[in-house]
């Protein structure tokens, strides 16, 4: 599966459109992480717990999106975008969406 956030794929030709595919997830870290982040907020620096939270959420949202694309018989997803929204504090909603297509090498 080829995934890009551009509308085209260099070296490939898009031969068929399969429509919008999407995946979302709402994830939270355990309370310990939130407390650690609160303490880190006194001294500054990277909040690793929240970086991890974002990475995990993004992976899950992408996986769900790709599963949809596979069901539609696509072999590529183009123009992938991410948006987030704050549901409650400490939780992240991550939404990934893109266009499922069938692409073949142009040569």
């Amino acid at each position, binding site marked *: 599966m080829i*995934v890009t956030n551009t509308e085209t*794929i260099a070296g490939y030709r898009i031969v068929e459109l399969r429509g919008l595919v999407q995946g979302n997830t709402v994830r939270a870290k355990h309370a310990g992480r939130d407390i650690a982040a*609160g303490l880190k*907020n*006194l*001294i*500054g620096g990277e909040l*690793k717990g*929240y970086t991890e939270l974002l990475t995990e959420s993004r992976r899950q949202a992408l996986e769900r999106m790709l599963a949809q694309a596979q069901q539609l018989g696509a072999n590529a997803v183009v123009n992938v975008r991410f948006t987030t929204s704050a549901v409650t*504090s400490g939780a992240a909603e991550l939404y990934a969406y893109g266009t499922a297509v069938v692409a073949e090498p142009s040569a």
Partner: protein
Amino acid sequence: MGEIAFQVGFFLFFIILGYVAGTIAERRHWANLAEREASNGEFLVTQLKSFPAFVTGSTPPQLIVAESAIGSDYFKTFLAKVRGLFGGEVRSYQSLLDRARREATQRAIEQARQLGYNALCNLRLDSADIGGNSKSSKGIAMVTIIASATAYHFHAPAS
């Protein structure tokens, strides 16, 4: 009376702790970023939707996503609150945004490089909302950035 002195003491302690530790963390991060940016200097990064100087490589173009979350310190948060009373430019938070963006960009470059690519196009930087907004009672002041880009192989001009 004693209680007030105790509270003021605590406040001052946190301010000084925030200032000292925050400044050290910030300097270190800046030095680290400058070093990585220098070593990734020849890596082509654009935010163009096309693929400048594309060459067919062993692998097709691929989505790269990287994130970073940088927290504020007590001193900066306090400065920002004071600024909120008078209005105007909140300079103490600008460094956070700058560092978070640069960090996410460098991480994206490093990921792409590990996968054997030598260029990124269509780099997008979005801020993510987690940890609630700053208006909530225990809101944590931080900046979270998601960088997404497409990695590909490009033909490096012979120098």
